[in-house]
């Protein structure tokens, strides 16, 4: 995951995020399902890790992901409509 390019990492984050949401919806109606709980745990952990790597290597994905190291980089990185992919 560390070696993935920006676009691949973003794709991984988007698809994993969708999976986590789907599993959450399933667990809304099956809160005791051990398989659902285990899958949710795995994919949410993967999502957190991917987001952390992406934000460290590229740019914050949300306002909560800004790492303030002397400058406010929230507005420095390209916005989604600016096609900021570098791979």
């Amino acid at each position, binding site marked *: 995951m560390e070696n993935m390019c920006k676009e691949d990492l973003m794709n991984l984050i988007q698809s994993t995020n969708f999976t986590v949401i789907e599993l959450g919806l399933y667990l809304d109606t099956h809160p005791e*399902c051990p398989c659902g709980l285990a899958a949710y745990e795995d994919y949410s952990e993967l999502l957190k890790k991917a987001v952390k790597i992406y934000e460290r290597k590229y740019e914050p994905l949300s306002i909560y992901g800004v790492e303030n190291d002397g400058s406010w980089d929230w507005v420095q990185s390209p916005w989604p409509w600016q096609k900021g992919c570098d791979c």
Partner: protein
Amino acid sequence: MEANCDVNQFDEEVKADVQPELAAESCRKCDNARPNDMRPGMRPCVDRPCDGGSGMRPDMRPGSGRPNMRPCGDRPCDMRPNRRPGYGRPNMRPDMRPGSGRPNMRPCVDRPCGMRPNGGLPDGWRPSDGMRSNSVMEDSDLHSEWNCGNRVIKDSVGRSMMVGCEGQTMSGCHMNDPMERLGDAFPPVMAYVPWQQWGDLYDPECGLKQGTIFKDLNYIFCGTRC
């Protein structure tokens, strides 16, 4: 209250339960009531002035009667004043069920009202056991196979279609759609929602493309794919 085809009995029970005073004092002249229709406590309006079928007592203020109640006034009254809307029989065909006026209604001739002979499912189909998300399809002459994330659905005559990440092009989907074959076999306005069970998942990328990560829920939507 038990389900019953007898609208007469139902109306009388509603009247007596909800507003016994109105039931007792409603205008029987407009109703063309037969004497033996009268319940204990009812009296005909023959000897008192007819209020035009409004069902209102003299001491009632306008608007204090039942909602949606309309007086029949001078026109021929085909509606008892305290009959609920939707239960008027005068415009119904004899073979219609109460409460509906749909033209393609089926009569409930030799069976309890509203019930189809096999409980609503077409011949040869079993009702869901309530535990399998796609049990209706798998229990019948439809079969499904799994193939590396792609799902192949076959019907009884061997026609097949693929559902999955690599099966996006599905020519003839409309003809092969198993739901299309069901046609109007199911009764209208009845939903069957079997409880979802945990099953195989698509990988995240495939799930995002399919719109669900659950293989069991990946059905054909011709509105977007054909």
